């Protein structure tokens, strides 16, 4: 009799009943960016919600919502899926809670390498890694006898050759949209040149130097090989350019490879699209790219019961072998049991080459913001590299003074 009952229950609730982690109370509300891997992650955690209330907001505007929403008490969200850069404002404002107790109690299956610890306290649990790396069109490179570029100098040479052949007018693409995206490209290239953004141990800027100038000059060379509208192109726009067959070399996020290589679009282009590691620059040996992790953090201004329920649901996903096997081509999962596929080659190469993580510093957001608007005029040919870097530093210093960092 009991067996029949169990079987009946099993049939009723399908597989999700199996995954239920017996959460009895609390409410779960998650704020996350919007790309396929994160949707998979949140869906997986939903399977385990039990009788808890479950809500999720996927938004590409997550950065703009996060701080105000978590500052409220009680906060709107019980969890925020953050990354290296977006955890910083949450830390600065003291909006997230340490997870040590919860990890001890419910974190079975989460690997130690997934824990983000700051000053000895677990502040986030990472579940995927990301970086920007090179994509190339195998057919175009083969036709012209070009080797797969390993450095940005080779990318420039290859793009010039493709342009000279008349195959494509704007053979290179990267997300150079003025603002966050453009600043991110500067950050990558500057780190590739071995630059440090701040004088050691202080918040004084340190970009107006030979490395900064070399970085800007390389960005300019690449922008000249891109579609002239490059200052308005974000990751989505260059993905469309690529799928239209206008581009043969591209720097793009690893997390976008899934949608780039799906069945939509011209099958010939999809077939010829190949991934390789990030390029180095200026004779450096570390790649001109930054490593990113995506992980979950829990809001401080929320009752402990909610935090517990949320942690259990998210930990279920962050240690889920089935999820990483089923969605192996959506992301480079940091979860145990992940077998890297061909789409994760970019991140794995980047790690092997010793790429640096995006700097997790309290004042980095201000530097990023200053870069996004002040280097535009240099790319447009309106001012010198030295002047642009001087402007970035000046804009940063004013903001940092207002925020009390200087």
């Amino acid at each position, binding site marked *: 009799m009991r067996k029949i009952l169990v079987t009946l229950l099993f049939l009723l609730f399908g597989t999700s009943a199996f995954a239920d982690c017996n959460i009895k109370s609390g409410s779960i509300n998650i704020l996350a960016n919007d790309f396929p891997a994160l949707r998979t992650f949140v869906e997986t955690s939903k399977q385990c919600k039990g009788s808890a209330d479950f809500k999720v907001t996927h938004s590409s505007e997550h950065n703009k919502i996060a701080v105000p929403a978590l500052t409220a008490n009680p906060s709107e969200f019980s969890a925020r899926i953050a990354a290296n850069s977006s955890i910083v404002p949450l830390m600065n404002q003291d909006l997230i809670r340490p997870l040590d107790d919860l990890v001890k109690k419910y974190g079975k299956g989460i690997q130690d390498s997934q824990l*983000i*610890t*700051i000053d000895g306290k677990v502040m986030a649990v990472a579940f995927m890694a990301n970086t920007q790396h090179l994509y190339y069109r195998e057919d175009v490179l083969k036709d012209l006898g070009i080797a797969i570029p390993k450095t940005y100098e080779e990318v420039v040479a290859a793009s010039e050759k493709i342009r000279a052949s008349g195959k494509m007018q704007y053979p290179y693409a990267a997300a150079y949209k003025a603002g966050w995206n453009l600043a991110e490209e500067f950050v990558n290239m500057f780190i590739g040149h071995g630059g440090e953004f701040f004088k050691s141990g202080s918040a004084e800027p340190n970009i107006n130097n030979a490395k900064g100038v070399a970085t800007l000059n390389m960005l300019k060379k690449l922008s000249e090989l891109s579609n002239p509208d490059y200052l308005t192109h974000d990751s989505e726009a260059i993905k469309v350019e690529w799928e239209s067959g206008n581009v043969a070399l591209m720097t793009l996020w690893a997390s976008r490879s899934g949608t780039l290589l799906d069945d939509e679009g011209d099958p010939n282009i999809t077939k010829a699209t190949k991934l390789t590691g990030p390029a180095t620059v200026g004779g450096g040996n570390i790649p001109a790219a930054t490593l990113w992790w995506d992980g979950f953090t829990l809001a401080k201004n929320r009752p402990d019961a909610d935090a517990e329920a949320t942690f259990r649901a998210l930990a279920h996903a962050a240690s889920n072998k089935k999820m990483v096997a089923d969605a192996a081509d959506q992301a480079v999962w940091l979860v145990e049991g992940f077998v890297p596929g061909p789409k994760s080659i970019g991140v794995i190469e980047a790690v092997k080459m010793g790429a640096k*993580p995006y700097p997790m510093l*309290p004042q980095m957001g201000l530097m990023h913001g200053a870069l996004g608007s002040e280097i535009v005029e240099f790319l447009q040919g309106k001012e010198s590299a030295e002047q642009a870097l001087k402007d970035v530093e000046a804009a940063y210093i004013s903001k940092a003074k207002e925020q009390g960092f200087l």
Partner: protein
Amino acid sequence: MPNKTFFWFFLPTGLAMILFIGLPIISTGIQSFYAQHDQVVKEVKKCDPFGCTVSIVVDNEETSKIREAKPLGKFNGFGTYTDRNHLAVDEIKKFWNETESFGAFVDQVTNLPFYKALIFTLTYCLFVTPNVLLLGFIIALSLNAVARKIRGPLIFGTILPMIVTPLVGSLVLFWMIDSQGIIGANIQNLMNDPYLSLKSSKTLTWITIIIYGIWHHSPFAFVVFYAALQTVPQEPIEAAIIDGASRFQRIKHIVLPHIYPVVTFVALISLMDNFRVFEPIIGFSAEGSAQSLSWLIYDNLVNEEVILFGSAAATSMMTIIGIAILLAPVLIRTWKEFKTAR
């Protein structure tokens, strides 16, 4: 209307205005005089999937103590107003002493974010407002002259730009001027220059936004002028026709003086609207080439991972002052006329 009746009539609106406009402005004003406390940072060990490093974090215990004592922040006086990202007083003094020619000085000043934004905002106002008035008036006159039967559909077609949401309107144009869009590609063909891009050139971006602004705002001027034209008395016009006045003379000497108060009204509203230009910059992704004062506020509040309340508040206050200065001549004139009319 007796003053007492007017008072009771106006009271609900007045209260709502004080509550929802007056008080927030005062609070913004107070905010603009404060900056964040000095950050207390400490060195700690940070570990993530890519390894461990020693670097700094904000010391939350210390910071929260300071914050509790002084929740508004550190008093900064006019510090935010005069810093480099706003009025840049020190920088301008320095440029004045260092640069050799006046041209070089202007170059340096217009490179500062606030002045860059101010120049775009003023250029936009100065080009859009008169053109909106002119175009709106011409459309109103022509529509007033066509047969009544087709007037309805024509009016609807004319106010369409105003019905379309600004963001949607600018996005449509944005895609059309893309180097592969219908306008962009044709201009490239026409100029025989495959590298020409309306979006990458600063001047062309400005022109595009200004044309968009005129397109978007003209219907408003048109609607108001068209309504005003219906009130123009026919007798003086007939008399003028009999006296042999040309169409232009009739408009200049009879129609324009009659609708003059309405022109002032439209000019005021357009100036105010145009000074706050914002949506087309987002719609056209034109942040790189064109920044307005409103865009600066938006940038301080949302584009930074750290929200700069002081900066945003200071720019807001200066925008309000800017609008007041722009409107002053028109307001003074209206006030004088009001007094003489009494």
